[in-house]
């Protein structure tokens, strides 16, 4: 009996061990290992040379990295703003549960389950300067042609458009489900008070779904920092580095220039940014829950 209870004590550890080990090996350890690599100069073949903070100094001294960082931030701001605003409008538009609304909701969600490479290839073809559909449609109105992916003023925004098309339906879906969970009695009470449409929207609707909105904003920020597929397929970081963002640049530095330490240092900076935003989010969340 005793040995059984002893093994029973060990059992839960055995049950979680494989999962915890894999998560440690492929999440926790690589984060530390990445920091370690960032202090070395290494080309993946020769010996590793300790470099102290040199990689970081080079990052912030060189003009390249600041350009890449500002591209990434610009992409993030455009992407998150457009996705959130359009998803909110779409969700409000589709609020009534009718056949046609359900159809549009399903349709707008579909791009979300298609691989980003497929989406990128389709949009690259649509955005082709000479034979693409978009420039043909513009020409009907006497406008264009626009160098969607070849004009350095436009290319980053074109990538944002692709991302918005892909994810707006998913975000709208989440917002719709949050809207549906607002208790009806709040609206009834507001109607009794003769509250204006505006104040109902701001005081009830927006306030009740704000936790969902903040969560989506966080998810979209983290997601947009990781933009890679569209860039690798559609622009290769060009024209003139206009769409060179962090993950793409880490990829290039690693596998094209073999500058492991430098690439790792970039990843550390991005990790720190994402970490700070996440911590800030959870702090804000805690405060909300406390004072409510």
């Amino acid at each position, binding site marked *: 009996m005793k040995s059984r209870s002893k093994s029973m004590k060990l059992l839960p550890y055995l049950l979680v061990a494989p999962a915890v080990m894999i*998560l440690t090996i492929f999440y926790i350890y690589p984060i530390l290992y990445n920091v370690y690599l960032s202090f070395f100069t290494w080309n993946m073949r020769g010996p590793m040379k300790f470099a102290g903070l040199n990689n970081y100094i080079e990052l912030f001294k060189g003009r390249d990295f600041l350009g890449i960082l500002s591209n990434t931030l610009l992409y993030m701001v455009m992407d998150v703003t457009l996705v959130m605003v359009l998803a909110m409008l779409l969700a409000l538009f589709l609020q009534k549960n009718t056949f046609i609304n359900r159809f549009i909701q399903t349709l707008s969600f579909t791009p979300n389950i298609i691989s980003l490479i497929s989406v990128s290839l389709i949009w690259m073809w649509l955005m082709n300067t000479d034979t693409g559909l978009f420039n043909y449609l513009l020409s009907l109105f006497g406008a264009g042609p626009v160098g969607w992916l070849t004009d350095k003023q436009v290319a980053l925004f074109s990538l944002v458009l692709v991302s918005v098309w892909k994810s707006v339906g998913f975000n709208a879906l*989440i917002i719709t489900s949050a809207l549906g969970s607002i208790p009806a009695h709040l609206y009834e009470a507001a109607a009794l008070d003769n509250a204006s449409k505006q104040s109902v929207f701001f005081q009830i609707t927006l306030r009740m779904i704000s936790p969902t909105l903040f969560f989506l904003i966080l998810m979209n920020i983290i997601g947009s920092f990781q933009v890679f597929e569209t860039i690798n397929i559609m622009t290769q970081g060009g024209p003139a580095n206009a769409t060179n963002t962090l993950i793409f640049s880490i*990829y290039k530095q690693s596998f094209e220039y073999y500058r492991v330490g430098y690439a790792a240092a970039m990843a550390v900076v991005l990790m720190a940014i994402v970490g700070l935003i996440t911590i800030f989010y959870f702090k804000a969340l805690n405060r909300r829950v406390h004072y409510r």
Partner: protein
Amino acid sequence: MKTLIRAPGLVLRILISVLLIVIFLTPFYWMILTAFKTLGEVLAMPPKFWVQSLQWQNFKDAFTRIDFLHYTRNSLIITLGTLIGQVLVVVPAAYAFARYDFKGKNGLFGTVLATMMIPGQLIFLPIFVMFAKSGLLNTYVSLIVPFIASGTAIFMLRQTFMQVPDSQLEAARLDNAGEFKIIYTIMMPAAIPTLSTLALLTFIGTWNSYFFPLVWTTTDAVRTLPLGIQRLQDIEGLSPQIVMAGNMMLIVPILIVFVVARKQIIKAFTYMGVK
């Protein structure tokens, strides 16, 4: 009178609805249309919005220009491997987190949840180095194992396992059923809806996976279909009809699954967004 007053609003609604349908349908329509065109029709300006005859040849070309079967087989092996691995790893862990109290449980579960917040694409480089040093580059293992301990899956299954009534467990324990028998005969059947939802999410995610098969491989040996389609773009980029035909063959399996399990997939994604 009333219909007259309502008319402008209704017309606007219909207009916006049509516009939305056009926006979300056009890229798909353009892909399908292009895949059936001749090269001449593809390059025609103004573009043709319909085709004279369907060019099935484009699909044959896409199929033979790249080793389509090779990439598809890799995609299937990795998808299946990930599904099986997830069941083996995630189910016991979720069971322990749901049904046992043990020292360090909260810390361990917190770690599991924390990994859900770590963007995996940020740490591809250290993992690449790890694979290179251990000789695991260009193996199926490297594209399966990192994804089988999914934090999301553990979290979702734990929620489900917690809802199984205690009485069922106690009855089984009185019968001297071993823990694995309990998992197999009580927990898994109770979690079939959750498990199938997770299987759908894993299938979609793994089938579409492009980034990790790209950065963790140096040869074509284990590369997946999305990488094959990119290869098609590299060699046949000047023939959009062939690229789009290949692209369709990548998308169709996902669309079939989506049509069949639409409600379940939408529910799963909604759940992930509001958890």
